[in-house]
C-alpha cells in the first residue's frame, strides 16, 4: 500500500483537494474541495454541465477511460492519492464500486452477473451464499430466487438496476458510487432503489449523483451543490465549481448561497 503522509480528519473516507478536471483544453470543473464522511449518503446535485458526473467518475478513476480527460489536484482515499502514478486503477475500482445511469447487466445469468465480480476479485468462499446475500442486500432476492439461471436481461429495468447494485455489493467495496441510478426508472422502482440505499448505508458509504432534488432530500445526509459559471473571457463556455456543501437539511432549508436557493426552488437548471 502506498501511503502519503497527509492527514485526513477522522471519519473522512474520501477527500478531494483542489481538484480540477479537464477534457482536452476544456476545463469541466475547477478547484473542488470536498470531504466524504464514512457511512454517509452524499448526493451531488446541480444543473446540467456543472461537472457533477465528471467528479463522481473521477472518484474511482473511470475518467481514465475517456482518452483526453485529465485531473489536477489530489483525491485522497485511505491515505493515498488515487491519482498517484504508482496507483493501480483496477485496485481502486475494486474498493470503490460504481453503478451507472443505464442498467447494464452482463449478458449472462443473474447468478453469473454477481459471481463475475467476486470471482475476479479472488473470492474463495461459498459463492451461492454470496449471491444470495448480495441479492438480499439489494432487495432483489425474493423476486429472482427461483430464476437465478435466467438471463439478467429477463428482469425489468428497475430489477436490472438492483441487480447492478447487487453486483457491485458482491465485490464488497468500501464506497459505492451511483451515477443517476434512477433516471431511467419508473417511480416505483425508484422508491425500491432508495429503500435499498437506506439498507446499504449500514455497511457502505454511498455517493450519488441525481437530478431529482426530492431524491437527494429523501436519501442523503450530505448534499453538495455544483453550479457552472461562464468563463470570464466570455466565449460562452462554462466551467463547473462546487457552490455549496452542507448537510442536506441545511442545503434545502437554509442555503447560504443565493444560487443554491434558486436551484432548489426550481428557478433554473
Amino acid at each position, binding site marked *: 500500500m502506498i501511503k502519503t503522509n497527509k492527514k485526513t480528519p477522522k471519519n473522512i473516507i474520501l477527500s478531494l483537494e483542489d481538484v480540477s478536471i479537464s477534457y482536452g483544453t476544456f476545463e469541466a470543473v475547477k478547484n473542488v474541495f470536498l470531504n466524504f464522511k464514512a457511512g454517509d449518503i452524499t448526493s451531488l446535485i446541480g444543473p446540467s454541465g456543472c461537472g457533477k458526473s465528471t467528479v463522481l467518475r473521477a472518484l474511482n478513476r*473511470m475518467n481514465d*477511460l475517456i482518452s483526453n480527460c485529465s485531473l489536477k489536484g489530489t483525491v485522497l482515499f485511505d491515505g493515498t492519492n488515487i491519482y498517484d502514478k504508482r496507483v493501480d486503477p*483496477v*485496485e481502486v475500482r475494486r474498493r470503490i*464500486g460504481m453503478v451507472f445511469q443505464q442498467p447494464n447487466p452482463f449478458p449472462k445469468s443473474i447468478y453469473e452477473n454477481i459471481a463475475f465480480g467476486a470471482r*475476479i476479485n479472488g473470492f474463495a468462499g461459498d459463492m451461492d451464499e454470496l449471491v444470495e446475500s448480495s441479492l438480499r442486500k439489494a432487495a432483489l432476492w425474493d423476486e429472482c430466487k427461483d430464476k437465478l439461471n435466467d438471463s439478467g436481461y429477463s428482469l425489468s429495468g428497475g430489477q436490472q438496476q438492483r441487480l447492478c447494485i447487487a453486483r457491485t455489493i458482491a*465485490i464488497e467495496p468500501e464506497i459505492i458510487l451511483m451515477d443517476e441510478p434512477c433516471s431511467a426508472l419508473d417511480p416505483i422502482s425508484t422508491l425500491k432503489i432508495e429503500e435499498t440505499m437506506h439498507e446499504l448505508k449500514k455497511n457502505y458509504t454511498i455517493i450519488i449523483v441525481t437530478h431529482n432534488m426530492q431524491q437527494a432530500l429523501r436519501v442523503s445526509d450530505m448534499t453538495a451543490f455544483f453550479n457552472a459559471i461562464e468563463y470570464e473571457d466570455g466565449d460562452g463556455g462554462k466551467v463547473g465549481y462546487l457552490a455549496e456543501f452542507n448537510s442536506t437539511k441545511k442545503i434545502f432549508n437554509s442555503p447560504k448561497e443565493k444560487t443554491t436557493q434558486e436551484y432548489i426552488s426550481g428557478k433554473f437548471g
Partner: protein
Amino acid sequence: MNSLYYQKKLSRNVVDKFFTSLSVFCALIAILPLIFVVTYILIKGGAQINPDLFALEPNPPGDDLDAGGINPALIGTLVITTIASIISIPVGVGGGIYLAEYSKGGPFSKFIRFGVNVLAGVPSIIAGVFIYALIVSTKILFGSMYSGLAGGMALSILMLPTVIKTTDEGLKLVPNELRYASLGIGASMYTTVLKITLPTAFRSIATGVVLGIARAAGETAPLIFTALFSYYYITGFGDLFYEMGSLAVLIYNFALEPYDAQNKLAWAASFILVLSILSVNIFSRILAAFTEKTKRV
C-alpha cells in the same frame, strides 16, 4: 382541380412504372450468372457423383478408362484451409481486439486499418507469389519446396483481413456500458475483453471467420504457386511438407486435360466445392440470424 384518384396515364406515373420495371430487369440480370453457374455445375457435376469419388485417388491423365476419385484433393482442401485458419484466426482476432479495445485511434491504428483494407483488395495470386518467393523457392521449411503448409500460409494471408475487420467491427458493436460495468467493479482490461466483450461479440466474429474460410477454400491461384498438386492419398503428418492436392487446383488441372474422364472428374470436384462453399455461406447466414435474435440475451 385534379382528381385524387390514381391516374395511369399521367406522365409521372408512366415514368415511375418504367423505372420500376427497369430496375427489376437489371436486378434479374444481375442474379442470372449465379443461377446459371450454380445450376450448370449442379447438373453437370451432380451426374458424376458416386461413392468411389470420395474414396479413390485420381488416375493420371491418359488412362482413358477411369479417372478415379478426388479423395486426396478433398482432404487436401480441408487440411490447407485448416492450416490457414490456425494461422489467421488467432492473429486476426488478436489484431481486431487491439484495434477495437486497446488502440485509441492514433496514427498507428489508422495505419493498420488502412493496411488491412489494402490487404483485402490484394489479388490472391500476389499472396501465392509472395509465399512462393518467401517459403517455396528458399526451401526454408526443412528443405521442402511446394507443400500443403506453404499453401495454408498463402490462404491465411487472404483470410487475415476478413478476420481482423469482422472482429474489429463486431467488438465495436458491443455497447460501452458493458465495458464500464466490468471495469467499474474492478475487472482488469484483459478480463473485460476475454470474459465480457469477446463472448458478447462472439457470434458476429464467428460469422466473419466462416465467410473468410469459405473465401479461402475456393482460391486456386495462390495454391498453384505453393501447394501445387498431388495424386496421392494424404497418409500422415509428414505429408504436410510435400505437394498437396486441393479441389480448386484439381479443377484447374483436369478441366484443361483433353481426356473426357478427367473433365468429368473436374465437374464432380466443382460440384463438391460449390456445394460446400454454398453451405458454409448459408451456415454463416444462420449464425448471423441467430446473433440478431439473441442480441439482448
